[in-house]
């Protein structure tokens, strides 16, 4: 029997009053793959992820995660997925160890102490465990958020800007860890990022969003080739700056 995709999104739409934040998007994330969600500010990336994770109800459309309908049965799947975003924080006055312990309990992890020790070691958080969340730098907070999102060994992981505010060395190590995690566990990842090099390195497929719509998609190398560019960043700029260029490479690239 064919395995269901990790994520299946069909005709997903979100309107806030007259404003269309996400407009009729459809895509799938295969099991074990990493898909990048790219787009400028306000393109609809965070809104799409929030709907996939069940934090935001869509205006229309269907979302299935690990074979479960997220609109009807999200509690069947929430213990098997996780999410990290710089827009959400952990309680400031609790130490990192306390915060992680609470989330380990919420996910009902069998041996929380071992798992926390393991993840703290991997993400270089051991010296920070006794510090309050509110006293961390932005980069440290990003790493702690990532640790929280990996506590339950998720089968599907949604990451919004996972290396935001990290120095190049730490960011590189985090990317390496995420890549290994996916390879070793077969987990699927949805990655929203403004870092094109990161997306090129980690993602099998890329969804390009603009004004709530998916305007192009494909493997990073295919997109680069199709647009006749050298990097994904150049492709991103082409798409962002091409008026009415949805679903088509700019004229010069198409020739």
């Amino acid at each position: 029997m064919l395995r269901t995709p990790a994520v299946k999104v069909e005709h997903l739409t979100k309107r806030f009053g007259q404003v269309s934040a996400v407009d009729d998007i459809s895509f799938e994330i295969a099991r074990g793959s990493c898909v990048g969600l790219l787009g400028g500010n306000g393109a609809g990336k965070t809104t799409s992820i929030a709907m996939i994770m069940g934090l935001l109800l869509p205006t229309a459309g269907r979302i299935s995660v690990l074979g479960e309908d997220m609109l009807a049965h999200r509690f069947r799947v929430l213990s098997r997925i996780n999410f990290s975003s710089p827009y959400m924080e952990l309680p400031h006055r609790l130490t990192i160890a306390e915060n992680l312990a609470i989330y380990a309990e919420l996910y009902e992890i069998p041996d929380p102490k071992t798992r926390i020790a393991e993840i703290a070691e991997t993400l270089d958080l051991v010296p920070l465990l006794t510090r309050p969340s509110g006293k961390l730098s932005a980069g440290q907070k990003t790493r702690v958020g990532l640790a929280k999102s990996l506590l339950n060994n998720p089968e599907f992981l949604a990451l919004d800007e996972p290396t935001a505010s990290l120095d190049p060395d730490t960011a590189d190590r985090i990317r390496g860890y995420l890549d290994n995690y996916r390879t070793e566990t077969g987990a699927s990842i949805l990655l929203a990022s403004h870092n094109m090099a990161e997306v090129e390195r980690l993602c099998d497929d890329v969804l390009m969003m603009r004004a709530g719509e998916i305007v192009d998609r494909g493997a990073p190398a295919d997109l680069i080739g199709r647009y006749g560019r050298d990097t994904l960043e150049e492709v991103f700029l082409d798409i962002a700056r091409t008026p009415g260029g949805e679903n088509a490479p700019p004229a010069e690239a198409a020739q």
Partner: protein
Amino acid sequence: MSVTTPVPIKAFSLRRVFAMVRRYWYLLRGSWPRIIELMYWPTIQMIMWGFITLHLRDTSTWVAEAAGVLLTGVLLWDILFRGQLGYTLSFLEEMYSRNLGQLFVSPLRPIEMVAALMTISLLRTLIGILPAALLAIPMFAWNVFSIGLPLLAFFFLLLVMGWAVGMIVTALLLRVGLGGESLAWFIIFLLIPVSAVYYPVDVLPVWLQWVAFSMPPVYVFEGMRAVLFDGIFRWDFFAAAVGLNIAYLGLGAAMFLWSFHVARKRGLLLAGGE
């Protein structure tokens, strides 16, 4: 390393409830000013009403007949107030720390969060009220525990009403955001004039008595006076308060769940702030 093996998801998990209680306990434990604040106001109120009682005892036959009536009233009112505040302030902590989004992508269910808020509200109320009640014994020769089992009934009736009001306030906070945080402090005081805490309910105009009898606290405070003045426990008042508490708890839960649904529609769980 392997991904988590799928496990059956429980509709209600005590482990998740106690995880949240632990989180609120860590917050409380980590701040001694907060613990002092919990005890401070009930104790100050008790001392003030204790002296008022000493003064009125010689001039008012009503107070002289049941010396502890004002002190018991103030302590019971604080149960209602602290019960509501303990529930609401713990919820506000999640909004201050923009943590609602993190919580609700976890398997935590709204009903489990409500159970955790109720538990921490009980703990906070006990921490706040017990020192005041104990201090009244040596200071004013009034032992509220001498009321016996009826006190337990009054305690839980008021605590549950506090939770119901807490649910209504948190429902409003979910809708209006942190801009409405003062609701946590003042909404409960709408009840004080009609709860007949310090005077019998028949002092109120008739139309206001109807309002009073549509809410549980008045039955508790009238019941308290029946115990202190006549030495009887009014089961009819108890039954009315239980019935109304169930209704208000249902209303609070419905409002909270509706607001939670609206918050998911409007993206407020993700935003969290103002």
